[in-house]
């Protein structure tokens, strides 16, 4: 039996299911109770937002040099303004700040280059970012070469130090984490137990303890005369600590890849490293982007703990500035500024990871 000889033409959807009014009706005012909740929610939002905006923007003071330039009715951004250079560069000598600026410029250019899909030579830029740039940045920041005056690491600080700790930590923790994760799944008992002990040790110790040990205890064990820079010790501690977490994230990804993938690669004659590098890891890492970025974000925020061993990262330098007797009583502004800067970086990482996930999704079901 034939029901319909002619094809039915497409018709537009009924108008009451489209547009902002329909959306509002469906989501916010679909019934008396929902309407009540919506209105109550809007009222709470009003109570919270209006004073915040008034404090942060409308009544705030922006321009000036001393605390007397602040009317004290709103936020006194004059404080952040006056201390801005310090917040960014720490105690880096004013005359040498151009060196830090070059490094900052290079850093953000490289990140933008790698993040924007249209730009060419990705592979070479990545190689330079991982090898050439760190060396150049060290030479520039530390000095002592090419007639550049030396700037010892204890004068580095502020956002510069935060970014340095975070990026070295991330770039170090990812490969170490991958190796540890592979080692933990290895059939070789010595490799396996080494990785298990390593991971469990670093995961079982608080980061504060690690940093304390790195700064207080390590010198006791080193032969006299040999001293490792405090910043280097903090970097090593932070990297190893985060690599243990990274290893567990990546191990989760490795376990999610079906055994058949490695078998198919093996059946084609690939060696262990090719099976891992070409087949298993690309899939595992892709699957674990949210977990990896989560670890990166927590690493970024954990860098603030270096404060306790006397390094002044962004939060540390803000706190130090708060105890300046000229600026007593502006801690809210200081902390809001620090929180805002941290939020910008963490939020960007989070958004970029979501973009990466969408981009790398090849829509496969197995």
């Amino acid at each position: 039996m034939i029901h319909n000889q002619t094809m039915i033409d497409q018709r537009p959807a009924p108008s009451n299911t489209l547009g902002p009014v329909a959306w509002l009706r469906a989501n916010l005012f679909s019934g008396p109770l929902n309407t009540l909740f919506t209105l109550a929610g809007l009222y709470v939002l009003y109570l919270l937002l209006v004073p915040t905006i008034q404090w942060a923007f409308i009544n705030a003071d922006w321009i000036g040099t001393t605390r007397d330039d602040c009317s004290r009715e709103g936020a006194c951004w004059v404080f952040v303004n006056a201390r801005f250079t310090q917040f960014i560069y720490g105690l880096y000598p004013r005359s040498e700040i151009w060196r830090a600026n070059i490094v900052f410029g290079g850093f953000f250019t490289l990140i933008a280059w790698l993040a924007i899909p249209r730009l060419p030579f990705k592979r070479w830029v990545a190689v330079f970012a991982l090898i050439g740039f760190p060396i150049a940045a060290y030479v520039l920041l530390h000095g002592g070469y090419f007639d550049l005056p030396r700037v010892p690491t204890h004068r580095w600080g502020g956002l510069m130090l935060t970014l340095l700790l975070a990026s070295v930590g991330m770039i170090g923790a990812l490969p170490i984490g991958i190796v540890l994760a592979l080692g933990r799944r290895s059939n070789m008992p010595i490799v396996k137990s080494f990785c298990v002990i390593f991971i469990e040790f670093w995961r079982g110790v608080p980061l504060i303890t690690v940093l304390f040990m790195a700064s207080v205890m390590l010198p006791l064990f080193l032969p006299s005369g040999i001293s490792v820079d405090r910043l280097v010790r903090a970097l090593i501690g932070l990297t190893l600590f985060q690599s243990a977490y990274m290893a567990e994230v990546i191990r989760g990804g490795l376990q999610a890849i079906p055994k058949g993938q490695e078998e198919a690669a093996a059946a084609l004659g690939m060696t262990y490293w090719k099976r891992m590098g070409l087949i298993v890891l690309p899939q595992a890492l892709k699957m674990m982007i949210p977990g990896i970025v989560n670890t990166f974000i927590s690493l970024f925020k954990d860098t603030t703990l270096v404060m306790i061993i006397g390094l002044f990262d962004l939060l540390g330098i803000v706190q130090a500035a708060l105890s300046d007797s000229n600026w007593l009583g502006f801690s809210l502004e200081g902390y809001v500024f620090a929180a805002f800067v941290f939020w910008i970086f963490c939020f960007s990482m989070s958004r970029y990871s979501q973009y990466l996930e969408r981009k790398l999704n090849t829509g496969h079901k197995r």
Partner: protein
Amino acid sequence: MTQAATNLSGTGMSKSKSDLMVEMRGVNKWYGDFHVLRDIDFEVKRGERIVICGPSGSGKSTLIRCINHLEEHQQGDIVVGGVPLTQDVKRIEQIRRSVGMVFQHFNLFPHLTVLENCCIAPMWVQKKPRREAEEQAMRYLERVRIAEQAKKYPGQLSGGQQQRVAIARSLCMHPDVMLFDEPTSALDPEMIKEVLDVMVELAEEGMTMLCVTHEMGFAKTVADRVIFMDQGQIIEENAPEPFFNNPQSERTQLFLSQILGH
């Protein structure tokens, strides 16, 4: 090497050693206490097409997976293309390069396109230049009639298409032997034929094939020998015609009546 005692096919006169592609002598394997393979003796000559059948859990898949060392055997000798299979990783990889394998669940690499799936091993294992590997991959993809999908990802293809890509991927390594591990068992019925057609063509071209399958039609058309396994042993081995028409062992008769019964 002695002539196989189990060769009942009557097809093979005693051939020289270099014609033996796969030899198994007294192969035993256990999973823990479970004895999966018991005293397996058999051999495959160059150009032979062999179908292995048997009830599930009889060790058929394990048997062919031992040939490229995806499973390890604990006793006995396996020689593939004249190379004895040992623990030596280099030797295992050498054998795997000459042995192609097609899996029940295709196991295509989902993060690579169809073309890349076919190029990755030639490029990274055989060190072929990309261009050459791609040209070769396109030739094999044309042979399995799927060249127009080369830029797609495996997840965008049907099961039958994926399995044909998997066959092409193996062929790109120019294997001497192809192992098929239930290649049609995971497919929807309407897709089985397109895969079997490719396999029949491959057999007609003279490829040495070992195929674990329940497709008895395929066995009748192309197999030189059919091997029946049960409980880890080779129970019966014969040319397809006598195997199907006049099975010797009781268990073979039972098995055949079950799968051909309706």
